[in-house]
């Protein structure tokens, strides 16, 4: 079936072709039917991105798994031997502890600070918010390697600005990166400084999407500010909190830049985390399979966290849909 356009040329009548019974073209029709599905079109449109991810993420991940199961010279398959070996090393136990300490404490602090900042920002009139929002986002926008170098300078043994201030008050100087406690605290502080704006902006967006009627209804019911926060704001934000915490947990566990620049794992290996230890073992000491095994230790930890958090998000979505 054909229709004519203004120029007189015959063009396919698209509407008619959709209405035409498919049995007239049995072979082409099956393909056309598949192609007409929204899911097929969606998949095809995503295909370039899927291929890109497969190339840049899936392939290196599978390659890392393969590497982690080879011997040091990469000539023999040793199965899970590298993982078993690592679990027997006391230094690696320290690395696991430090990675968890670093990631969990930094994420809790970032989420708390982001939550408070988002609420403070939310009560500021929108026209005054813009500048403050921009300023607060600076730590997150500046390339991490550069900002960490700035921090490193503040902690530096010879030129530490912090120690210069302490000198001014007659307080003894602190070896910020030279003693275990201060070095760990410094790393966590820099990570919090860098990551809090991300939480703030996500929570602010979530706050803005909470319907005002809920707060009005709560006010009419005589709810206090605290009760509104606990019974209205938090339940409405639970999904976004879960997803941001998960995302941040993954990124913080995989952090490399901050530790590498500030301490390189010292003093006494007490600031090494998975990524820096993997680099030291794999690239610097020439044991790539063991380095790959170190970096893959993050996988089960993050996978378990992801399953629990995403299951909670899905459950809440179902409850909301049902309710």
């Amino acid at each position, binding site marked *: 079936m054909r229709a004519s356009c203004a120029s007189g040329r015959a063009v396919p009548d698209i509407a008619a072709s959709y209405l035409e019974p498919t049995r007239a073209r049995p072979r082409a029709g099956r393909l056309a039917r598949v192609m007409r599905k929204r899911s097929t079109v969606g998949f095809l449109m995503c295909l370039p991105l899927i291929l890109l991810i497969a190339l840049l993420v899936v392939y290196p991940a599978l390659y890392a798994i393969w590497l982690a199961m080879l011997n*040091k*010279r990469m000539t023999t398959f040793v199965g899970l031997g590298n993982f078993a*070996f690592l679990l*027997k*090393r*006391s*230094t690696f136990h320290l690395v696991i502890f430090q990675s968890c300490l670093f990631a969990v404490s930094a994420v809790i602090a970032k989420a708390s600070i982001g939550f408070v900042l988002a609420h403070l920002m939310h009560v500021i009139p929108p026209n005054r918010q813009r500048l403050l929002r921009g300023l607060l986002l600076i730590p997150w926008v500046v390339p991490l390697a550069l900002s960490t170098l700035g921090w490193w300078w503040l902690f*530096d*043994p*010879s*030129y530490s600005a912090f120690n210069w201030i302490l000198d001014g008050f007659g307080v003894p*100087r602190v*070896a*910020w*990166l*030279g*003693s*275990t406690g201060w*070095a760990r605290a410094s790393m966590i502080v820099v990570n919090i400084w860098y990551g809090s704006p991300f939480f703030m902006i996500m929570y602010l967006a979530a706050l803005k999407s909470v319907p005002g009627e809920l707060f009005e209804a709560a006010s009419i019911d005589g709810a206090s500010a605290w009760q509104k926060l606990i019974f209205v704001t938090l339940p409405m934000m639970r999904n976004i909190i879960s997803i941001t915490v998960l995302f941040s947990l993954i990124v913080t566990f995989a952090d490399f830049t901050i530790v590498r620049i500030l*301490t*390189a*794992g*010292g*003093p*006494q*290996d007490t600031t090494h985390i998975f990524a820096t230890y993997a*680099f*030291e*073992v794999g*690239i*610097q*000491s*020439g*044991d*790539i399979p*063991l380095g790959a095994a170190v970096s893959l230790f993050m996988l089960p930890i993050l996978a378990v966290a992801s399953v629990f958090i995403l299951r909670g998000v899905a459950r809440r979505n179902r409850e909301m849909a049902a309710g």
Partner: protein
Amino acid sequence: MTTTWTMTRRAALRTAVAATALPLVHIRTAGAAGKLTLGLWDHWVPAGNGAMKKIIEAWAEANKVEVGVDFITSVGNKNLLTIAAEAQSKTGHDVEAFPAWEVHNNLQNLEPVDDVVNGLIKQYGPLNPVCEYLTKINGHWMAVPSSSGTQYKPSCARISVFKAAGADVQAWFPAKAEHSPSADEWTWEKLLELAPAAQKAGMPFALGLGQTTDSVDFAGALFRAYGAQLVNEKGEITVKTDTVRQALEYAVKLTRFLPPDVYSYDDASNNRALISGKAGLIFNPPSAWAVAKRDNPSVAADCWTFPTPAGPKGRFVPHLPYNWGIWSFAKNKSAAKDLLTHLAQREQVEALSTAVSGYDIPPFPSMANFKVWEQVEPPLGTVYNYPIRPFHNATPSIAALPAPPDIAVQIYNRATMTTMIAKAAQGGLSIEQVLAWAQDELEGFMR
């Protein structure tokens, strides 16, 4: 006036014959002998890359090889990452600059260069023992020891600080080819004796105990001077010995007089301490002095470079060599060998070292007499004793030597020695507890 050219049938025939024979004649043009790519170390001293490029371009022109050079920085270990990537993908440059341990790490992907190195040994005598330890594997030379980037890390002291403490470093190691009897005074015990005075004067010795090479090399030289080996040449763990205890006890005593933040030092921290006029001594190549010359000339004029202190087992100067290796998957191995032979000739080595104010150390001890080390100033002769000279009675050393290199590389890069010192001095562990920790750690390196 115009000239009219005519061509006879005979001339046309001659031209045709000549044109037909043309492909039979080897015509040398740029690139006629193929292409060659090099991934060389990006020199700290800016003039270093220019000097290297000039030498390579002249060789390329003379040999009709099209040469491409990439200078790869060691900042952020980018050179190590490049080496790892090329080794994995089996493609990249033909020639690569391998820092100290990387020859062993990439052994299976390297082309032996026995012909090149044996030829050079015939010309210039034996290589220094560290270069041999790092590049001669199973009886084969697997890389050509290079001068570019190769360094010693001797003492670089403030003349005035030592004088105030009663020591004359210029008398110990004068800028002339003779052994001063007073040079024997410069021992680790003497260093410990001078350290409190320097600390009291606000000019402590900035000797790092961090995770990076300067710290590790300092600890390595100290341990070797006391005969302390963590692993012997047979690969046996020898950490629970009196020599290791002795070295560790000495180091713990010394840390009381070092700046409190030496445990977080990186390779730039000691340089900054010297340049800012806050340190009386560092162990470093003359790069710190060179920056001081630019940024703080009065400090530079007060600096003197000379070998590290001696211990009961001798005087060991930290040495960190670079090597040039040819990948087994290189496309133009013959041109690569020719070029490396050319670069290792005395004339080229001296030109490169002179361009970087004497920073580069030749791998052949017979070349330790370039004019540049006599001429550099201020003060005149400040780096005369930077290269090891025969009358220094010193031996080049790399931390963890003589352990088999596949174990030594882990001791070196995991900073086992500095961590041991830190655990004893800062971590509150007893010497025996530290030795037990080290034993466990070293057992892990044996896999």
